[in-house]
């Protein structure tokens, strides 16, 4: 049952990679759930009057919900691109500063 050193290292590295993938998957699940929950809330506020006359979604509410989801996703994507551009900009400035410092 003696383990050669290299194989042990590999084993540890594999376990680390697995733990990292697990944490990342966990974070992605949470991020997705957060998006969904906020969308549910936002579209409920936009489309469902708080009078609750009946249990069903009526025609007008249903159409509103469909459009609301589409618009929400659109907003999500647009702001995502903005954030990405901002991140790249910040990185470019940082790199420029590091070059000037060198």
């Amino acid at each position: 049952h003696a383990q050669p050193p290299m194989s042990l290292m590999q084993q540890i590295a594999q376990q680390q990679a697995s733990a990292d993938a697990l944490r990342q998957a966990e974070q992605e699940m949470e991020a997705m759930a957060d998006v969904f929950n906020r969308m549910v809330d936002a579209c409920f506020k936009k489309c469902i009057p708080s009078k609750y006359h009946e249990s069903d979604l009526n025609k007008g509410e249903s159409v509103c919900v469909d459009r609301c989801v589409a618009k929400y996703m659109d907003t999500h994507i647009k702001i995502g691109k903005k954030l990405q551009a901002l991140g790249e900009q910040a990185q470019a400035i940082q790199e420029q500063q590091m070059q000037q410092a060198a």
Partner: protein
Amino acid sequence: MDLSSLTEQDRMKMLQLLSEKQMKDTMRLYNSLVERCFTDCALDFTTRSLTSKEEQCINKCADKFFRHSARVGQRFQEQQVILMQQQQQGDQPAAAQQQQ
């Protein structure tokens, strides 16, 4: 999500995590639903128990929220599928294929 690097043990952990997450989400849904329907429907504080009018309102509020939430879930999934297809087709602008 790239789960190919998971060990067998972590795959099991993943499933457990998923079920715990689901449990937690259900709890959160439950609690937020109570808060929402209570806030919108309980309007009379001259009595200690819910009036029949308040109770009806709470029932409709909960039903409506379930249906709303299910509908948002369906649309969300559909959009996710469209977005994935677009990404595979080489990152075309998302808005272009979503008009009307």
